[in-house]
């Protein structure tokens, strides 16, 4: 897919995401190295890689959290900035809530911040996941906080969802429910980029996967084509590619 020849007309719609020659250096560590990536609208993409492979760094760059990098990154044809942030709904790796807050506080903030946020949708999802909008966040378990975060980001009608490990702390039964929540709230014109270590639980909802290794993409493609070519599940393939 990386090397796909594009014969698009000059006035064709820009890709949802264009990343070219992206480099990110942390002190004493190269986090991303010459990364090229394009994503089109209408896909659920799994971003897979071992710890420290650069997944979170990439997502932070796409969402404007990290600004000191070299290379070009555009979303919907625009450089990362206020315009792209309105298009992107981001679930970060660490929650950013203040302990005294309740979901209701966050909901009213999201209503102020994002024109595409639906309060009704968020409350409906919260209730379906068994959460109480008046419970203080510092009395919630890790899994409950993750569920709540996901409700917030999926209640926006964004063009691009970036979900960094959205289900790591959630029990298996709730995991399936959350995946269904993602599928049922997913607008076929938007794209979801999701990092996860729980590949076997999640791979059924992806159509595209990206393997990231030491800051470089080592594999990208249609998930069923990869299964057919390798005769393996993505989980099995991951274990082989990243064997310690």
């Amino acid at each position, binding site marked *: 897919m990386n090397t796909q020849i594009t014969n698009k007309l000059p006035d064709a719609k820009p890709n949802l995401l264009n990343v070219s020659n992206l480099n990110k250096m942390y002190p004493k560590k190269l986090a991303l190295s010459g990364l090229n990536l394009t994503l089109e609208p*209408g*896909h*659920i993409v799994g971003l897979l890689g071992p710890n420290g492979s650069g997944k979170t760094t990439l997502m932070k760059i796409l969402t404007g959290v990290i600004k000191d990098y070299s290379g070009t990154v555009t979303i919907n044809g625009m450089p990362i900035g206020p315009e792209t942030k309105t298009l992107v709904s981001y679930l970060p790796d660490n929650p950013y809530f203040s302990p005294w807050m309740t979901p209701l506080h966050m909901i009213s903030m999201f209503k102020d911040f994002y024109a595409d946020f639906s309060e009704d949708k968020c409350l409906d999802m919260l209730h379906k996941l068994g959460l109480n909008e008046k419970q203080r966040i510092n009395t919630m378990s890790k899994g409950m906080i993750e569920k709540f975060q996901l409700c917030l980001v999926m209640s926006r009608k964004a063009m691009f969802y970036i979900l960094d490990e959205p289900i790591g702390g959630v029990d298996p039964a709730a995991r*399936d429910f959350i*995946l*269904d929540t993602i*599928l*049922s709230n*997913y607008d*076929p014109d938007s794209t979801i980029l999701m990092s996860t270590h729980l590949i*076997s639980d999640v*791979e*059924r*909802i*992806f*159509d595209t996967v990206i393997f990231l290794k030491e800051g470089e993409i080592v594999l990208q493609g249609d*998930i*069923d*084509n990869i*299964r*057919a070519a390798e*005769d*393996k*599940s*993505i*989980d*099995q393939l991951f274990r082989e590619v990243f064997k310690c």
Partner: protein
Amino acid sequence: MANQFQSNTPIYLQLVNNFKHRIVSGELTVGSKLESVRDLALYFEVNPNTMQRALAELERDELVFAERTTGRFITKDKELISKMRESVAQEIIDQFILQMSSLGFSNQEAINLFIKKIEERSV
């Protein structure tokens, strides 16, 4: 419906087989309308693109046809369905023969066991 798919073979092919099976068994009636891609994807808990691909494959096999504005339907071609039914049966029989011979049974022994089982079941 979660985790009903084997993750080592393409999910769209597993969906195609699921539909084929339900068409030839009559669970999906001749000429009936299919739900939307989105609803089917939700029902099977798979990516909508995967479902789309499965339906495109079924269209290619002419087991499903699309009408521009109204959606997708199961074929009305009963002959095609009965042919497909036979070919699914052939596959099952092939597998039976293969597995029995890999266990070291001769053809005649396999047939005898098969008949014995059928007689037991019909009692």
